[in-house]
């Protein structure tokens, strides 16, 4: 073979090898950068949600400890008014009733922002209380299947689970037109298994693109990414909606 041709042949072989190595390295760096951006996104979501929770906690405390006692004092003062006029008595009674309503509303808002039951009684009781309070008055029949949860479940994670259920219940109330709702929380194979089901009108998941996806579903996905959990959502028109969350226990430790 001609020397020059041999050189070109060698050059091509070496160039190809070089190109292959460079391509492999390029793909590796792309994958690495991609996983970095995913990690950054997750970090951002965690910060956002934690900030949201902190702010909720602060507002709930302000409402409960700041506004509550002031309203109670106002009510006491109004009730202590001494009058013999019938018309004044009616006004005082009305004002007192309005104040009661305002206090109830504030208590409810404060409770929704940061449920006291979650802190005092734990996740299962808090969920029971919330679901019954939200669904039963609307004529939805509720069924609970709760088993013992691991004791080392952190408060932060409990709040995430609570918020997820809150989101599902709100969706059920707003859109599902359901008659029955059931929830199951259990521990299986190193996972906390959260399952919910309703018999409502359901929705077509395939028709929901990113633009039309409601905020509730996005919130669920964000919280899932924080908890490293799998979310399965089965729904079809007139066949109800079913959620399954597999939350790995190790992420709680």
């Amino acid at each position, binding site marked *: 073979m001609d020397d*020059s041709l041999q050189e070109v042949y060698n*050059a091509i072989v070496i160039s190809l090898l070089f190109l292959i190595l460079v391509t492999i390295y390029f793909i590796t760096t*792309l994958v690495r950068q991609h996983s970095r951006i995913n990690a950054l996104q997750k970090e951002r979501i965690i910060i956002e949600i934690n900030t949201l929770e902190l702010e909720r906690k602060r507002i709930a405390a302000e409402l409960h400890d700041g506004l509550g006692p002031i309203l109670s004092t106002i009510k006491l003062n109004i009730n202590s008014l001494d009058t013999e006029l019938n018309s004044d008595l009616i006004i005082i009674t009305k004002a007192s009733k309005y104040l009661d309503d305002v206090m109830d509303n504030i208590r409810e808002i404060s409770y929704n922002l940061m449920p006291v039951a979650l802190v005092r009684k734990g996740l299962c009781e808090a969920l029971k209380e919330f679901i019954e309070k939200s669904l039963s008055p609307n004529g939805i029949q509720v069924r609970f299947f709760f088993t013992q949860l691991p004791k080392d479940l952190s408060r932060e994670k409990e709040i995430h689970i609570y918020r997820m259920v809150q989101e599902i219940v709100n969706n059920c109330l707003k859109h599902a037109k359901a008659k029955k709702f059931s929830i199951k929380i259990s521990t299986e194979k190193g996972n906390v298994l959260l399952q919910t089901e309703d018999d409502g009108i359901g929705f077509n998941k395939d028709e929901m693109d990113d633009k039309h996806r409601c905020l509730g579903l996005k919130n669920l996905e964000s919280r899932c990414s924080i908890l490293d959990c799998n979310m399965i959502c089965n729904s079809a028109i007139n066949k109800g909606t079913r959620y399954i969350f597999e939350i790995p226990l190790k992420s709680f430790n």
Partner: protein
Amino acid sequence: MKRFILIYFSLSIFIPAIIALFKFKKSDYKDRFFYYFIFISAGLDILLRYLKAVYKNNLVVFNIFALTDLVFLVLAFYTWGLFQKKKHIVYWIIGVFSVFWIIEHLILSSVLRPNPYSRVFSSIIITLLSINMISKSLIMDKQVFYKNYKFLAALGAFLLYSNIAAISFFWFNTNAIFTGKFQNLLNISQEITNLCTNLLYALALLWMIPYRKFTMQ
């Protein structure tokens, strides 16, 4: 005719150098190392031609090129966020390479003789770093890639230094003896790559955003 075209190709470093001259005053401090890199490359190119014409030996400039290219490109990549503020990696790369360069040029050989190992070493490092920079700017930056100056600069560096690294591999493989025909082919490929790189550098400089002072007015 071919020779003339190649000479013009080799002069192409002055295209980004002229753009850099005009844009330097308003440049962002983050882009300064890239400007220095362009200025030094153009300056060394002039020196290269001068030494070739006067002393018939310009190897000293080629040897210095290997060091300056690596130092300034690594610093430019660092200021563009490639190492995520991990300054120690920059110190390590520059430090290790400088020691290697000094050993090869001042202890084992001479700065006036051809010393390929530093060149290959620096080319491989720059190639790997520019690949990292390309993928980072493709994924992290929200700009379109052809308007992303970091991407364009890294692509330019990748083209040139991967070509140098590949040619050096042939050089080692054939024990530095090439036939005239093959040598010509390599020269042409290198000059074309050089031209493409310089045009990409020029484009990158054009897209660079000028420094804006923070003002409340």
